[in-house]
């Protein structure tokens, strides 16, 4: 995961947020809004063009592409969501503990994060998936671990800065416990930054998980997943039917760009204001 270098125009942020909301709604309401069963095979209707019955056409097995796209939003969003929640929780927990206790504990955590940081996330996830089996859980767990140092490093720096602010010292002088100060004051003040990190990480996790699915190490057919749809559509591209790969790829790109734009806006909104 690399730092974001985009400049999102302020007016693009609400549009991006709306796109994120729409994709999330699509995932939540999939059973009610999908026009067909995403798994229903209809070989006689394979590679059907855009029509009223199949607005985005069908794939090589005659499955409705719109329905698969709608259902695919579920796994495509659930994976990154689990990754950012798991990595955010673990990373922030480690970061705040290291910043709060300092000394040898901080050194230990920092060196452990350095070691974890040395493994590129995608490579780690692919290796773990190859070793422990394909599916949804294995790549998500591996990617969560890979994202921990990315989030923890940023959060540790912020926690260090926050920990040394006079209001934290005032709370210590008031006799509040470390746990109380961390849970009631430090963490809530770090929450906006964590939100930004999560939103940035979400986009990258989505690309990584789509890549893992594309390589055949994530979800397996007949699951409806955008990365898998891109992979499954590959042979059809050569046959002159690029819809499946193209539609899924566009969905991934739009969603990632939208989340990244929202993250960029959040970073501008919350960045560095400690007063």
């Amino acid at each position: 995961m690399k730092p974001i270098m985009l400049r999102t125009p302020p007016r693009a942020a609400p549009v991006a947020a709306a796109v994120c909301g729409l994709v999330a709604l699509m995932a939540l309401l999939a059973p009610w809004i999908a026009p067909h069963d995403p798994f229903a095979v209809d070989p006689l209707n394979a590679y059907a063009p855009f029509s009223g019955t199949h607005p985005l056409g069908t794939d090589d097995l005659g499955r409705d592409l719109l329905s698969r796209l709608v259902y695919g939003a579920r796994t495509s969003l659930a994976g990154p969501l689990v990754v950012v929640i798991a990595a955010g929780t673990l990373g922030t927990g480690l970061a705040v503990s290291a910043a709060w206790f300092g000394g040898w504990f901080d050194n230990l955590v920092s060196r452990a994060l350095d070691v974890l940081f040395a493994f590129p996330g995608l490579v780690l996830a692919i290796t773990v998936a190859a070793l422990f089996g394909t599916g949804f859980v294995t790549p998500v767990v591996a990617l969560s671990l890979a994202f921990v140092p990315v989030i923890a490093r940023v959060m540790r720096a912020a926690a260090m800065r926050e920990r040394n602010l006079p209001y934290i010292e005032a709370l210590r002088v008031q006799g509040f416990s470390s746990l109380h100060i961390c849970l009631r004051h430090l963490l809530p003040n770090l929450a906006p930054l964590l939100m930004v990190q999560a939103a940035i990480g979400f986009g990258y996790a989505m690309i990584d998980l789509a890549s893992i699915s594309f390589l055949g190490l994530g979800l397996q057919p007949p699951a409806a997943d955008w990365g898998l749809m891109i992979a499954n559509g590959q042979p059809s591209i050569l046959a002159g039917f690029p819809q499946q790969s193209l539609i899924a790829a566009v969905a991934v790109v739009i969603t990632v760009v939208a989340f990244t734009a929202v993250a960029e806006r959040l970073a501008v909104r919350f960045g560095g204001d400690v007063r």
Partner: protein
Amino acid sequence: MNTPLLEVRDLRKQFKDFVAVDGVSFTVPAGGSLAVVGESGSGKTTCARIVTGLEKATSGTVLLDGAATLDRRRRASFVQMVFQDPYLSLDRRQTVSDCLGEVLAHHDREMDRRSRAARIDELLDLVGLDRKLGESLPRHLSGGQRQRVAIARALAPNPKLLVLDEAVAALDVSIQAQILNLLVDARAATGVAYLFITHDLSVVRHVCEDVVVMCRGKVVESGLVAEVLEAPAAAYTQRLVASVPRPGWVPSRAVSRG
């Protein structure tokens, strides 16, 4: 003889090779007001931080009401601190009422909501803040108002001793005067004693009776404010007093030199 509220004996604090505080001793009687003055780096803030428990002394003793050790909560209800920067000493997410309410609930768990609200109003009155500001976040307050909130928070547990670490240094002059007057009034109203850390001698005259002058971690002179500042005996104190700007004043290059 009465036990002093605060007794600091032969205090020493070393940061690696640097000795910040070296054999400092002083006392603060109940209801008294002691100023610790000196230029930046003289060790006065380190003393204050040790007294409040934010730092541990390398050696020496700090006795609070005659006791060397107090548990966290008892220490907090005995000694409190007001910090220099009012912009950073309040949690930016917490309203004034929540800030004070949290402290009150922490120190008196049996206090019900109504009593707490009444005590918050009382504290706001004490520091001269409009009660309506209770629902304000720190960013909606001026520097002076924020420092008043910080003082109210420090006074909330009814401490016997209030450590004020350059508490007016970050405020502009007119606000400084208001806060100093507030401190004088608050002391009269509550009987709280002050340990006033400052480099501003005019502030010392306004608020304190006793003064300790520190230079390079050591006490060079101590006594009544009127005596020490009017007729300083130590060469360092003389230079410190001479460095206060006045009509026709020519600044020397450094107070602590030779």
